[in-house]
Structure formats: C-alpha cells, structure tokens
C-alpha cells in the first residue's frame, strides 16, 4: 500500500480556475505513461499524450470498467462512482449489442435534427437572456443561462418536464460524485432517479408522446425496462451537466481576455471554430475517461499489462504540442481542430452534435444581444466545482 500512497494524487490540484495543472505538460514530455493514485486510493495509469489517449479510446477491445473487473475505482466509494457502476452492465458496452443500442439512440442526434432544433434553442436563449437582463447586473450566467438552457433542450427531447430540473441537478451531481457525496447519498440518488424514470416510462407507455423515450418504448423490439431506465438517466445526466458547465466555461474563457470576445463581435463567422477551440482548451473538463485493459498493450514504448486501468486525460491530450501548433494559445480560427473533448472511437460522445449546436447557438445569441458582456469579477476569483467527475465553475458573475 505504501507504494500506492507515494504516487501523485489524480486529478491534480490547480489554483486558477481556467488554467491547466503544470503536471500535464511535464508528464506529456517526460512520463507519458504515469502511475497515479485516484480519489479512491486505487492505482491507475494516466495517459496525457494526444496520440496515446486517442489510441486507447479508439481501441475497440477496451471499454470502461465493469463492476466485475476489479478495476481501479474513480470515486472514493465502495463501488467507485458512475464510471465503475452497474450502468455498464445494463447498457451494452461491446460489439453488436452496443452498436444496436447506440444506433437506436443515434437517429435522435443527427445533424439534420440538430439543425432543426436551432430556432427553438435560439428562442429559449433569448428568453433566458431577457430574464437575466431584466433582473439587472451583475448576474450569474451559469444560473441564468448556462444551466437552464441545456436542461430545457434535453428535457424536451426526452419528454420529461423541465420544472423538475432542480431534482435532476441534485441526482446528477450526486451520481457524478468523486469525493463530494457519501456512498449512501450516491446510492439514494441512483435509486430515486431510477424510480422517477421508471414512473415516467410507465406513464409514456400509457400515453406515448413525440419524444425519444416514447419512441424507444413503442419500438417493435423495445429495450428491456432496466436498459430504458439507464438510457433515460444517462441521457438526462449527460445532456445537461456537461453542456451547462461548458457554456459557462466557454464564456469565461472568451471574456477572460476580452480581445477574444471583440474578435468574435467583429467576425461572428468565427463562432464555429471558437466553440471547438473552447472545447479543446477546457482545462477543467473533469477527471477524464477510464478504460480497463483486458489485454496487454504497448503505449509510448511502455507495455501496459492486462488488468491495467488506464485514465485517459483528454484535456491534457488537447494541449499536446505534438498534435497542435502553439497548443497553449487560444486560436479562435483553429482548423482543423482534432481535440478529444468528446472522446474518440465507438464510444465517442453520442450527444456531441447537440452539444456543438447548443454552444454555437448560445454564443451567437449572446454576441448579438449582449455585445458589452464582461466578467463582473477578476478572473482570479472564478472558482472551480470540486469533487465531481465532471468539471465546471461554481458560478460566472457577469455584467453588460
């Protein structure tokens, strides 16, 4: 145990909310296959280079750990939190079964469907901004816009009422805990969310609507109920928590050096590439993605034995000088931008076209409606969300 105790604790602590920990650059150049200790106390192998992270995430042999793997646990609970949870066994993770599951959801996230959502998302963003402005500056952009917008979008897609958003947010935060909540709180949140989703699915079965869950329920070959529940919960958590945080972090990054905001005002056609660059430079993206190696594999000249838990830090990989010119600089026109913010391979983020669409629309509307937007506090005062597997800012005080 003492050997594990001597390992650096991952994720690394950081002082500034928008800056990366110094260890990322050190490890990329000197120790691309690093041994670290997770919040659980378990040992994992941390990968930080773009090429390595992409290779492991794209390798069809490997997926996230299942409870049977005895893999390193990400969270400081007996089960190890959401990345080690039972969801892995309820939603198929491998081969044809995974493909079938994924494709049944994928049709709801096509680019065409996302483009059709644009006017509705823009109208909602305008409404939320009007409400925020009516209350006066300074305002918290996370509470006023970043959080409610993606929740409304995903609730609409799933056919669940967005008035329950505070409950979703509580369950979601708790289930995404790394160190913040107790084992009992995490279990309770999972059970309560499960009961809520089961009741919702039963109601949809009686009275199907024009939404994703109704379509899955009425499919000629429907998923088992446990899979439906896990899918509904997974989409609801993934659909709001990550995007809500990313809207807030993106605006913070763009305002922290206001010449960036001004460049976008002068040339709004940069919105698309600016969104991608914000995703790439997100230093506060959360813990990363775990992969359980069921076979030995060689990475950067080091053989990782079977049974290794590889922690893939996409955020560290996204700053790799070997993959990106002037990697630490924010280049709003960077193209192409092969960042790994959404992962890679067969398990790459299912909702990425939705996230992109939301980020682009919200930025377009903000530039148009609030060109004078600025931070209401010094950037040093921005605080990170601590203790969850996803990263974000506690709030974002702005004025205009």
């Amino acid at each position: 145990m003492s050997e594990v105790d001597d390992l650096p604790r991952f994720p690394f602590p950081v002082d500034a909310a928008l800056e990366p920990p110094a260890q990322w650059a050190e490890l990329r150049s000197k120790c691309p296959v690093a041994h670290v200790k997770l919040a659980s106390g378990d040992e994992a192998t941390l990968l930080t280079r773009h090429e390595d992270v992409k290779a492991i995430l794209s390798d069809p042999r490997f997926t996230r750990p299942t409870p049977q793997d005895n893999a390193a646990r990400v969270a400081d609970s007996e089960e190890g939190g959401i990345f080690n949870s039972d969801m892995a066994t309820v939603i198929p993770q491998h081969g044809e079964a995974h493909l079938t599951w994924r494709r049944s959801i994928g049709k709801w996230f096509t680019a065409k469907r996302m483009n059709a959502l644009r006017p509705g998302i823009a109208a909602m963003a305008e409404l939320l901004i009007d409400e925020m402005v009516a209350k006066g500056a300074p305002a918290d952009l996370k509470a006023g816009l970043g959080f409610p917008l993606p929740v409304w979008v995903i609730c609409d897609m799933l056919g669940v009422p967005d008035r329950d958003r505070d409950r979703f947010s509580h369950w979601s935060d708790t289930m995404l805990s790394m160190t913040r909540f107790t084992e009992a709180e995490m279990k309770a949140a999972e059970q309560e969310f499960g009961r809520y989703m089961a009741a919702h699915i039963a109601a949809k079965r009686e009275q199907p609507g024009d939404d994703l869950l109704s379509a899955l329920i009425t499919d000629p070959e429907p998923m088992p109920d446990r899979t439906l529940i896990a899918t509904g919960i997974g989409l609801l958590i993934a659909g709001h928590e990550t995007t809500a945080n990313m809207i807030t972090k993106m605006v913070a990054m763009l305002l922290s050096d206001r010449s960036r905001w001004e460049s976008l005002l002068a040339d709004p056609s940069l919105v698309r590439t600016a969104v991608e660059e914000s995703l790439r430079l997100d230093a506060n993206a959360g813990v990363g993605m775990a992969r359980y190696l069921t076979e030995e594999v060689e990475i950067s000249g080091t053989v990782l034995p079977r049974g290794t838990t590889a922690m893939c830090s996409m955020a560290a990989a996204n700053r790799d000088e070997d993959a990106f010119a002037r990697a630490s600089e924010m280049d709003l026109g960077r193209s192409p931008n092969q960042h790994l913010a959404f992962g890679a391979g067969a398990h790459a983020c299912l909702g990425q076209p939705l996230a992109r669409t939301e980020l682009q629309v919200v930025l377009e509307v903000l530039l148009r409606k609030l060109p004078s937007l600025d931070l209401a506090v010094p950037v040093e005062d921005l605080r990170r969300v601590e203790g969850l597997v996803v990263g974000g800012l506690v709030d974002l005080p702005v004025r205009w």
Partner: protein
Amino acid sequence: MKITVGQDKCCGAGTCVLLAPDVFDQRDEDGIVVLLDEAPPAELHSLVHEAASVCPAAAIAVSS
C-alpha cells in the same frame, strides 16, 4: 478528390454533416454516415479534409 466512408466504423457523431452537408448525410434510421458526393467540387475540399481529420471514428478516407 475521392472520398470513401466506412459505415461499419461510423459512430454517428454527425461532425462531417455539420461541416459539409452537401457532401455527407446521415441515415434517418440510425444516424450512420451516407456519402452524397464522392468527388465534390474544389471549393468544398478544405471542409472535406477537415471532416475527415476530425471524424471521431476515423471513418472518412480522402485520396487525391
């Protein structure tokens, strides 16, 4: 320019369609990539190269 797509590799992220909707589309039933134009005009080449390089599943190949 000649484009090929691997439907078996595609993960349906739609990145290519968002970038170059005149060249790529997705099947309505499952979101898998469909190639609309395997030899698009020169003005679309840079977007096609970008789509190929950012495809999360490396499912797009471009040859000249």
